[in-house]
Structure formats: structure tokens, C-alpha cells
């Protein structure tokens, strides 16, 4: 092989290789220059959602719990002696309003209830029951009835029963209807009111969550004076049968009961001259007491509690003739001793 041939071959090889390598190096840039349009920068995600239409905003927490009445100082007794599912902080707005207006608030402990239930009631003008989880004895119910007959005020507040538990205020009924008190009706049925066990909800008109239902006044009751609309979180429907009891607050027409999905409206609060029944206790808590007109309702409830003029000395001490044995619900655990 001559040097000329070798040189020529080498030159050709080098040039060809150089062209290939240069071409390979330039190609990516050429593809990029002539390649994709900047369409990918378009924000397709933003087109899928309109933030202004999506955002749910909590309403303002406003107002104060005020009382209108100028009643003489009264004593309000709050039951915490029947394993009541309520804490003192849950009732703080109501208690604060009562105390600020010169009234006294006491708590009925388990020991008080067992030792001298009637004696505790005798010193009170109003009795508040929230979510009791232990049955009342027959004597206790008899004493409470005497208390109310004498002009004492009674407030019954109950949330829907949670899964696996028994209807709280239903216990009152059960403990008597099965008990040894001789045909006495239960407390709530005495008043022609019974509490439903399933929650209300509304998929059409609600406050932030379908379980937070609105209720508006029905008729004219002192309990709803100044109230346009309240919010109940996890409310129970009430069934009102007695003529002496008037529905006070009613949920919207498209409210349903969760268990059976039957459409309302449903009564969620009722009032007679001496008794108020409300199928929700959460509205008393500080977190809910200032939503919508809830603070007006709390104030009206406080006014109701001090509106009575109970006869002194009622209820009388329990006697064997008045009922004797404690009523106890089957399977309800330890029954308290008679009052």
C-alpha cells in the first residue's frame, strides 16, 4: 500500500467520521429548534377548577349571649350525676350568662343524686338534663315531676344516640315504663315529647357540612324570640304529641333523618310552660354558640330557666309510698340508689 493510498484513505475516514460526529452533536439542537411548540406551558389544571366557585367559608362568630329577664336570683341545677355526656366547658356560654345576671348555677353530682335527689331539686328553681347515659330511678322521676308541678323549670337536651349506645333521654322513659313505679310514664313521654335516635341532615341547605342543619322558629314561643335561624350540629328530631307542648324550632323542608332518609321538616325544639326540649346540645358549646342566631337561643334558654316561680319545699322528700323501689332499665348497668 502506497503512502498516498494510505493517506487518502485516512483523510476520507477522518472527514467522514468528523461529519458524523458533528452531525450527531448538532442534531439535538436541530430537533429542539424545530421541535415542540410551547403548548405544554399552558396551565391545564387551572382550567379544570374555578377556585372562586369551590371555596367554602365559615360564617362569622358574632354576638353575645344576653338575658332579657330581670328575675330574682334563681338557682339552676345542672345534672352531671347520670353519666351525662357533657362537660362543664360545653355549657360555658349558658352558665356565664346565668351567673352574669346574678343567678346561681350548681352541678348535681352522682353522689348528690344518690344521697338526696329531691333535696337537691328542692334547693333549685330549674333543672337542666343533657345527654344522661344512666337511667333515672322511679323516685328521681317522681321527684322531678313534683318539681315541675311546683313551677320548677326543666330543660331536656339530647343529641342523637351514637352507634352502640342507647338513646340518652330514652333511658328516662325506659327506666320507668319497665320499673316498679306503678304505671308512671317516662319523663319525656309525660311531657308529650320523645327524642329521635338518628341524626338529621340536609344535603340542600346546610352550614359547611350536611349534618349542620338550619332550624327556624315555628309559631311564637319565648324560646325563639329574636331568633331568625339557628345551626344545630348533629340534631335529633323530636316527636311532639301533647297539646301543651308547642314546636319551637323546625328544620328545613328538605331535612332528612339519616337512618330512614325520610324527608322533613322536623321539630328540633319544643316548649311548654315549664319544659323545654331540644334535640341538640352542641349549640351550647362555645364553638357553636355564636353561629347564626345560636347566641340568642342560648340567652332565651337562660331566660326560660329563671322564669319560674317554684313553690318552696318542692319536691317533698321521697317516701316509700311515693314510689319506693328504683326503676332500672334492663341491661343498663348499675342503677343508682333511690333518692
Amino acid at each position, binding site marked *: 500500500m502506497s503512502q498516498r493510498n494510505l493517506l487518502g484513505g485516512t483523510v476520507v475516514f477522518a472527514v467522514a467520521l468528523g461529519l458524523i460526529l458533528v452531525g450527531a452533536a448538532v442534531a439535538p439542537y436541530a430537533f429542539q429548534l424545530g421541535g415542540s411548540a410551547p403548548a405544554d406551558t399552558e396551565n391545564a389544571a387551572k382550567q379544570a377548577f374555578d377556585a372562586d366557585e369551590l371555596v367554602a367559608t365559615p360564617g362569622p362568630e358574632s354576638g353575645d349571649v344576653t338575658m332579657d329577664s330581670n328575675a330574682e336570683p334563681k338557682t339552676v341545677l345542672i345534672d352531671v350525676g347520670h353519666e351525662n355526656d357533657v362537660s362543664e366547658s360545653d355549657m360555658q356560654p349558658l352558665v356565664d350568662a346565668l351567673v352574669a345576671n346574678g343567678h346561681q348555677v350548681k352541678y348535681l353530682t352522682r353522689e348528690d343524686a344518690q344521697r338526696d335527689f329531691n333535696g337537691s331539686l328542692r334547693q333549685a328553681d330549674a333543672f337542666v338534663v343533657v345527654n344522661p347515659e344512666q337511667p333515672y330511678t322511679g323516685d328521681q322521676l317522681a321527684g322531678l315531676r313534683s318539681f315541675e308541678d311546683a313551677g320548677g323549670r326543666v330543660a331536656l337536651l339530647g343529641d342523637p344516640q351514637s352507634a352502640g349506645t342507647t338513646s340518652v333521654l330514652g333511658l328516662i322513659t325506659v327506666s320507668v315504663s319497665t320499673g316498679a313505679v306503678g304505671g308512671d310514664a317516662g319523663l319525656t313521654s309525660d311531657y308529650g315529647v320523645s327524642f329521635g335516635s338518628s341524626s338529621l341532615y340536609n344535603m340542600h341547605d346546610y352550614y359547611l357540612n350536611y349534618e*349542620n342543619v338550619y332550624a327556624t322558629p315555628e309559631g311564637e314561643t319565648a324560646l325563639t324570640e329574636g331568633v331568625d335561624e339557628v345551626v344545630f350540629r348533629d340534631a335529633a328530631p323530636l316527636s311532639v304529641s301533647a297539646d301543651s307542648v308547642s314546636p319551637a324550632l323546625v328544620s328545613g323542608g328538605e331535612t332528612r333523618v339519616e337512618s330512614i332518609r325520610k324527608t322533613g321538616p322536623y321539630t328540633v325544639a319544643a316548649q311548654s310552660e315549664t319544659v323545654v326540649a331540644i334535640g341538640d346540645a352542641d349549640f351550647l358549646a362555645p364553638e357553636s354558640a355564636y353561629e347564626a342566631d345560636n347566641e340568642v337561643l342560648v340567652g332565651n334558654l337562660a331566660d326560660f330557666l329563671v322564669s319560674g316561680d317554684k313553690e318552696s319545699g318542692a319536691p317533698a322528700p321521697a317516701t316509700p309510698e311515693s314510689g319506693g323501689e328504683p326503676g332500672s332499665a334492663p341491661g343498663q348497668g348499675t342503677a343508682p340508689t333511690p333518692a
Partner: protein
Amino acid sequence: MVSKPSSAASARTVSVLALVAAVLVGAFLAPVVYDAAAPTPDRVAVISVDGYISSYTADQLEEDLHEARENESIKAVVLQVDSPGGSAAASERMYLAVNRTAQEMPVVSSVQGTGASGAYYTMLPSESIYVTPSSVIGSVGVRGSAPIGGSSNEIRTGPDKASMTVDQREAQIETLKHAFVGSVMDHRGDDLSLSREEVAYAKVYTGARATQNGYADDIGTLQTAIDRAAAEAGLENYEVVEKEPQAQSGIILLSSDSGDSTVVIEESPVGYDGVRAPQFLMVYGQVQYEDEVIGNVSA
């Protein structure tokens, strides 16, 4: 005179060697050139959406769909779905990825077992949704843990730093519900016989019922969905390429308890080790965590 024959022989040798080299190089390059020059067969990509939807699942789907959009041979996508949903954030990401892909090529979904909540969200932009009678789809809703109380042994710069009010949490969950339900109505409103409120109940439906109320389009298998996707793309001859998700380990445990599907979150799919961060879920089934606030009846 003596050198002439030698020079000619040398030139021939060079030519022969060059020819051999050319053949060898050509043999090596020819298949590459052939493949590059030959027309690429059209493809339908089958992409799995399987199990609990986490950020990892969303990463995988986004990657697969990005590849489908970039690969010119892929003309249509079929989502092979068997999932109860999962993290709300991941579900939204997957919905958006499918939505973008559906703007460029036909996307058809086939529900193998369950296509509920976040998985249904993912399928919404599909041209068609195929189910079998035992498929379970729907559950259009959001759920999340209730606010956690602030700790007294720490100092915070603001009242909502560690927690928030129930109202605020409910508002957040309601906002996510608006997005989910709104997307369902946008994509399937014309087909649905249910109102917005009925959709928001978050009920699940079995396949046959879902074809009646518009949650799904028809009864069909995966092959039905592939055929439909190819037809939508105008393909007669095509290949099917399947993209299986890589196994994910150690985060989510699926178990069965009394016949009900139970999702146990060992680590928060949207939280972090040592921190109980708020969780928003778009999942169907029993979720075990404390103090749950449910955005809908059976989300």
C-alpha cells in the same frame, strides 16, 4: 515497472478491506436505520390504576401518561382500574393528568373490581367507562380527620399553627367536595340521571346500576375498552402496550375484616413521620383513624 503490479494489488487490497469494513458497519447499522425508517405501529397503552391511591401512585400515572402523550406511536389510552381511591391530593393529581391526556387522545376506562372515590375521580375525563355487573363505582365524597387539639407544651406563633377549628376543617373538606362533585357534573352531567345532591351523597353503585344512572357507560371487559379506545383513535391495526405499576411496599396495608374492606393507614399518605398532619381522603371503605369528620354520608 516492477512497482506497478504491487501498487495495483495494494489498491485492490484497500478496496477489499474498505468493502469488508463497509459491510460490517452496514450490517451493524442497517437494522437501526431500518427501524428508524420503518413506520412505527400505532399503539394503545393500557395503564393500571391499582390499589390505594397515594402520591406514589400519582407519580407513576403522571409519568406513564406523560410518556403516552410524548410517544407518537401511542394513539389512545385505556385505564385499567381497580382501586378504592386514596389521598385527595393524589387523586386530584391523577384526575388532572388524565384530563390533560384526554384533551390529546382518546382515554377509555375499564373498572376491574372497584373504581370508587379517588379512583372514580381519576376516570372522569374518560371517553367511556366500562364496568362489569360486580364492579363498584361512585363514592363521590371527601373525608378527613377532625382537628387535633393544640399542645400545651409548645409555643406557637399563631392560634391555628398546630390545629384549627371544626368550622375551618369542615370548610376545607366542603371545598374539596365542591371540586369533586363539580368535576363529576362537568364530565358526566349529561349522562347522569342523578342530581348534584344525589351525587354528593357519595353512594357507591354496582356496575349494572351504574350503567343505568350514568356513572358508567356500558358493561364491558378490558378488551371492550381497548377496542373502543382504538376505534375512537381511528385505528385498525395496532399494538397494545401494558404499563404495570411498580410494587409499593410498607405504607398501606389492605386487609379484610368481617367481609368489609378496611384501609389501615400505617403512615399518613399525605403526612410525614412523627407529624400527625391533616389528612384529606377520597377513599371508599372503612378508614381507621381517630375523630373522623366525614364530608359526606359514606365518602
